[in-house]
Each structure stands twice: as C-alpha cells, then as structure tokens.
C-alpha cells in the first residue's frame, strides 16, 4: 500500500510535464499549427522561470516569468508561422535548437556559469491538511507539487473552452476548415495568435515545473525529451485535451515502472526503453488513427 501510494505520487509528478507538453501541442494543433517545438518552448519556460526567481528572489515570480515568457515565445513562434509563412515543421526544429543555444548563452550572461544556473528559490510541495488523511484519495493531496493542480486546472480549462464556449467552437473549426471560419467573418489569424500565446504559456508552465518545482535551478537541456514525449502524447491522445491528459498519464505510468524496475537484472537500457516500447505496443494493439485536424499547417490570408 505504502509502495503503491509512492508509485502514484511519482506517476503524478512524472505526468505534469508530459501532460502540459501534450496540452501545448493540443492547443496549437487544434487550431492548425504544427508544433514540433514543444521541447524548445518548455526549455525556454524552464529558463525564464528560474530567471524570474533569481531576479526577484521569489519562486512565484519565477512562475509568473515562465508564464509571461511562454506567452511571448508562443507569440514569436506564431509570427514565424503566420506572418513570415515559415514552414511550420522547420520552425519547430529551429526553435528547439534556438532554445537550447540561447539558454546556455544566457546562463553565462546572468550567472557567469556554464551549463547550469545557481540554485534559486523554488516552489515547495504542498500537503492539504485534512483531505490528505483520507485513505486512497488522500494521496492526491499529500506532498504534491502545486503544479499538479495547475495542470488539472489547465486541462479542465482547455476542455471547457474548447467544448463549452463560443471561442472554442470557432477555434476548433479553424483547425478543420479555416476558410469556412474566415468567411463567417472571423479573424482566423487573431485566434491562432491568441491560442498560440496560451500554448506557449502552457509550455512555459510545463518547463518551470521542471526548474522550479522538481528542481531549484536551470540545467542546460533539462527538458530532456519531455517535449517530444508530450507531442507524442498529444497525437496519441487524438489532439484532444482529455485524450492528451490520459495519454500523458499512460506515459507517466510507464516511466514509473521504469524507476521501480531498475533493480531487475536486465541491462538498464532495456529498462529505460520501457516507456517507449510500451507506447509502441499500445499503438500496435490498440491502434490509433493518425487523424489530426484537417487544416494542420494550412494558412489563410
């Protein structure tokens, strides 16, 4: 039971960056923008978060920085995709590379250090008093990162906005048939910009979870592929907020198993492979249609 509860806790922690990465992809791609740059956006978020915490001495200001920074980078990303009509997949590759390089350069500028920042104030885990004592569900409220709740809030918000609001309806339509939406008199690009700013914010939060909640510093390339996994989770989840959430959870469970399986006497590489193998097997046996939004990558005037 004790072990089980620890595994749950670990799974929840592992899920945060994956789910947020996936949500970032879902938000962008449902509006028709191909987002291979989740990894880079998250890394930039991780950096701006630490920078904010460093400059202010307050970790929550750091979080705010990652939110604002994420939004700005999301905007710039869209500027390339829409205004400058860059090939969207290439923008992704470029942004990932840019993020990796620029954060390293700035480490030198702000901390005069190579490869990692100084430790900064971080956001502590929380335990909700009474509720955490309840058996089973209590685990969800015991020693958890506040980001977990932020993540759930984001998933819920995206779902509500997508499926319960006017802008959500329009936005989903944009991803399928932007010309139809445009002839309804809606400024398609404006919606895309706004959505991408939010996608950037979500990526930023996902990044600062790594640097401010899980850790208390920035390390070069510290996202370590989580953005790509998030992107995969988004596709796996069918470009849908709930699907992305569940897919992120599945990946997180696979990773949890990886941590607990490390004493099994098989070469570590095979254990590290497990999350990826598991995903492949699920795809093979469950089968998942690769049908994304119809207008993915399509621009309007």
């Amino acid at each position, binding site marked *: 039971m004790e072990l089980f509860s620890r595994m749950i806790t670990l799974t929840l922690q592992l899920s945060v960056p994956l789910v947020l990465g996936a949500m970032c992809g879902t938000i962008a791609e449902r509006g028709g923008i191909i987002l291979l740059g989740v990894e880079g956006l998250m890394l930039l978020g991780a950096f701006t978060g630490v920078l904010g915490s460093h400059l202010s001495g307050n970790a929550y200001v750091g979080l705010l920085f990652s939110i604002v920074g994420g939004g700005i980078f999301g905007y710039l990303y869209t500027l*390339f995709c829409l205004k400058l009509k860059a090939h969207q997949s290439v923008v992704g*590759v470029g942004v990932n*590379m*840019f993020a990796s390089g620029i954060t390293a*350069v700035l480490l030198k500028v702000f901390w005069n250090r190579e490869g990692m920042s100084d430790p900064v104030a971080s956001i502590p885990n929380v335990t909700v008093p009474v509720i955490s004592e309840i058996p089973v569900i209590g685990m969800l409220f015991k020693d958890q990162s506040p980001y977990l709740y932020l993540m759930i809030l984001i998933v819920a918000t995206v779902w509500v906005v997508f499926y319960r609001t006017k802008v959500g309806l329009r936005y989903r339509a944009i991803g399928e048939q932007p010309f139809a939406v445009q002839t309804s008199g809606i400024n398609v690009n404006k919606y895309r910009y706004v959505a991408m700013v939010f996608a950037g914010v979500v990526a930023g939060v996902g990044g600062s979870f790594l640097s401010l909640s899980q850790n208390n510093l920035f390390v070069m390339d510290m996202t370590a592929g989580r953005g790509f996994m998030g992107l*995969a989770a988004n596709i796996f989840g069918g470009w849908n907020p709930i699907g992305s959430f569940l897919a992120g959870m599945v990946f997180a469970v696979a990773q949890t198993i990886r941590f607990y399986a490390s004493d099994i006497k098989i070469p570590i590489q095979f254990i590290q*492979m497990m999350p990826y193998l598991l995903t492949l097997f699920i795809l093979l046996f469950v*089968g998942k249609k690769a049908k*994304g939004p119809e207008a993915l990558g399509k621009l309007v005037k």
Partner: protein
Amino acid sequence: MSETAKKRSKLKALSALGDFGSSLLSVSIALVLGAVIILVIGEDPIEAYTALLQGALGNARSIANTFSKSIPLAFTGLAVAMANRGGMLNIGAEGQLHAGAMASVLVALALPGLPVAVLLPLCIITGVAAGMLVGFIPGYFKAKKQTSEVIVAIMLNYIVTLFMSFLVNGPFKAEGSVSQTNAISEGLMLTKLVGNSQLTTALFILLAVAAAQYIFLWKSAAGFQLRAVGSNPSASVSAGMNAKKLMIFAMALSGGIASLAGVTEVMGKYGRYIEGFSPSFGFTGIAVAILGRNHPGGVLLTSLLFGILDTGALRMGRVTNVSANIIVVMQSLVILLVSAPEIAKLIRRRSR
C-alpha cells in the same frame, strides 16, 4: 516542342535562382543578428566572422572538412526529402542512422578475413539494410494501422539509440573508458580524399545517392508513383497504385538513405561505432530537407551551408570567445529565417 522545353527549363532555373537569392538574404539577416549577439557579449563580430570563413574555407584542408561535415547532413536531408516526397514525415532519421552505423561496423568486425573489395560494400549494404528496417517500421504502422509515423518514429529513436547503447556497453564494448566498439581494420575505412582532412570517398557516395535520388524521383516509374502517392493518395489508388506499399517503400528508402549518414561517419571518420557520435544529424536533416525544397540539389546546397557554419564555428570558437552555444543560436536563426520566405519579401518591399 523542344523550344518550349527549353523555355520551361529556363523559367525553372530562374525561379530556383530567385529562391536561392531569398535564402541568401535570410542567411545574411541571421548573420547580422548573430553579430548583434556577439557584440552584446563583448566580442568583435568582424573578427569572429573572419575566423568563421577562414575556418570553413581558408585552405584546402578546411574546405575539405567543410564538405565532410556537410555529408551526414546531406544524407539525412536527402532521407527526409525522400519521405516527404512520399507524403511521410520521417522524424526518425536519427534512429535509422545509428542502426546503420552499428550494423556496418558489426559486419566489419565479424568478418575481418574478407577482402576489402567485398567487405566494404557488404558493410555499407548491411548498414543501409538496417536503416531501411528501422524506417520500414513507422511506414508499416502507418500503412497497416494508420498510426502516425511521427509518433512511432519518435519512439523508435529512443529505442534504437538505447539499444545501440546496450550493444556498445555490453556485448560489443571495447576495452577502455569510452562507450565504443572495437576499431575496424584501417584498410577498410573509406579513403581520404585530402590529406589530414576528414573528407573521404563518402563524398562520391553522397553525390551518387543524390543523383540517383533525383533520377529515381523524376525519371523512374517507381519514383513517379512514390511522388504521386505523396501528393494525392486517392488519385494514385484510383490509377492503380498500391499506396500502402509505396508509403512503406518511401519510409524504408528514406531510412536506408538516412543510415548512410551513420555508415559514412563511422566507416569514414571513426573506424568504429562510438556512442553519441551524431549531434542530432537526424533532426537537422528535417530542416535541411525542407530548406532544400525536398530536392536533391537544394539539399546538397543547404547542407553545404550548414557544413560551412559547423566547420567555421570551430575556428571561430577557438580564436574568439564566441562559445559553441552562440553558434548553435546562429544556426537556429539561419534555420528559422531561411524557412521564412516572407522575410526576404518584406525586406524588399520596405527597401523600395
């Protein structure tokens, strides 16, 4: 008839030239932005760029090295372009090139007795076969299960590199503290073209593959089918093509070409498989392919540009305090700006 054909090719050449011009403009902007960053960190951009050019093109050896550095990127670029033409995004070139590299080295190590004339082609063929196998999988999933080839390939990248890590730290580990296989015999390695440089006959393999790819895509029946399926699968099926087979074929072919990036690196430069020898050739290949307009000629040019930046960066890093990371930033700016054709237009409009 031949008159119109001539006119046609002239027009094509002109528009290609225009494309090239805009790309150059974008590269210049990236360099200007890079110069600003260099200034900000308190270095002299002119000195830095001089070093960059000298390092990349200063003498025969550096030119040779520049070519040699562009070769793996050209291979992955060609690979991604091949898949793109077939309507597939091959994000798995990284895994494919690792598989190819390992396979060729293992064959070389397993059959040391064979004469080079037999063994070398055998190594290359095995490497290509391994790459094709890894490329085949996402193609197969896509054709049979309609799973996104992107997600399968991302997973495969991790799986393949981890598996190679297992091989190189387990059964095929060499003595010493580096994760690498034993060295293959020196005679087996690709011949150097310019002394003391890293340029080998891999260049000829590349040129042959690029030419073959061009001829295949635009002159052969199979290439036509591949492009047709990539551009309009349902029309292709109605015309009697086997779209699924062609999708798998495109990915396998792409994997085979990507593997050559790995094969020529290990057979040409290292003489063994070294863990982590590829600095993301596979991912950069996506940019190379698209910036090269999925055309072999464009891919070769783009990869050469990347080769210049990569090689020049080494000297720039040495003689100035411009760190490797700033070079990464500059390269990413080149990718971003070259991918955005509108930038050139915007600037021309402004300057008018």
